[in-house]
């Protein structure tokens, strides 16, 4: 679900080409997100997991999948190793 939330934001709000995400080697830098885009993207997750993810400047140096794994690890660290339900109220 984490991957879907971020991909949906990047495709629907930032107009990124959906086919970009077919590349397993996709780099975050290739998405050409500026610092405002990055914090806006992270907010999509933070709003659901209830805490602010640390230091967003790390992510442009990572691969896309590496970033997803890093975000998931941060969420698990805040939830005793569990990945909570990331649906917002009202989402099925």
């Amino acid at each position: 679900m984490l991957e879907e939330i971020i991909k949906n934001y990047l495709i629907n709000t930032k107009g990124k080409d959906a086919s970009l995400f077919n590349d397993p080697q996709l780099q975050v830098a290739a998405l050409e997100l500026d610092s405002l885009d990055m914090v806006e993207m992270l907010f999509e997750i933070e709003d659901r997991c209830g805490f602010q993810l640390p230091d967003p400047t790390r992510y442009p140096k990572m691969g896309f999948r590496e970033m997803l794994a890093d975000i998931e690890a941060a969420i698990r660290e805040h939830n005793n190793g569990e990945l909570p339900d990331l649906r917002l109220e009202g989402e099925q």
Partner: protein
Amino acid sequence: MTKVLITGMGAISPLGADLPGSFAQALAGHCAIGPAPADIAKWLPDILLAPAASEPHTLLDSKHASLDRASQFAMVAAGEAMTTANITPQPADARRFGVFVGVGFGGAHTVDGLYSRFQSAVQSEGKRNPVLMHPLSVPRMMANAAAAAISMRYGLNGPSNTYSVACASSAIAIGEAFRAIRDGYLDAAIVVGCEAMLTPGSLLAWNALRVMAKPHADDLARSCRPFSQDRSGFVLGEGGAAIVLESAARASARQQPALGELCGYGCSSDAAHLTAPSSAEQVYAMQQALDDAGLQPADIQYLNAHGTATETGDVVETESIRTVFGSREHSQLAISSTKSMHGHLIGASGILEFVLAVMAMNSGSLPPTATLEVPDPRCDLDFIPQTARHGCQVDAIMSNSFAFGGSNASLVARRYPQ
């Protein structure tokens, strides 16, 4: 000093989603005032509003969806004005093209949303973190958000300045853009006024001032009654309006017809009271604008009054107009308060009323003070009661904006021969 021409105009208002629609409804005497939605009416059952005729985001690209509602109004109005002026993004003289915006409050919807989210999270029994806010909250709510959005949309590298002068904000934005072009600092400008504060928080604050109109017994829509004996205050509206100003040389070089010449601007400060107006300084603003234009009072045929329908404001403005233009017996001036129909758009009111006045000048049709049924004897000028007047020869117009805080602005425009 160069002549400053109006080459484009636009509006999204309670009367219409564009300027021709808004003007047509104004001429029809349509009052776009109604009850508040449930989330506001549950606290303020008698409060009345004049919401925009169309949702601004439906008229914009999806990439502008994250802007505050006030900035969305600005973008819609600017788009119409730039289209009518035949100006496309990235003009070759981008550094000589400025952005001037007037806004009274700015991002009221963002601020209200922020507090609403905070309160909701506080009451969620730990389910949500009250500290987490959208990272674009500040860029959305900042007063110059609209100016930033417009300068980026059109690639304009001249100054992008925002004037926050309450009800006179966009009139002063027009005046300052006028001076910048007339005095040679710029060759063109897009001027925009916008406001969107029909939110629970801001309406609670406005209600506390005791200046809001009470519902009229016969017809809610006719509750804002400027210059009328039974007036009870104003109705808050929302929307935006825009004009494109160009030096005569720039407009001529690209053979762009002018909608009129902006030729006079006067401004002053009461320096006396936060909300009570001063006739002497209103008079001074109007006289400056006439002097600036090189016109006599008799050269103005139509005046769009500030006309808020407050007890003091209407009487003082009448006194000021009478001082400048003479009594009804000695003047041919026709005056109306279009706030009777579109409500008070605060930061956007000055420019909306100015573009309606320019439309009146060019069409010869004068919008009425639609709700003026029983005139206050102290308001004894020709306020075009109830119905529009057609077939008028209008060579020049004036538009007044007098703000809380004591800031006054008057603008004069005249026909420009093609």
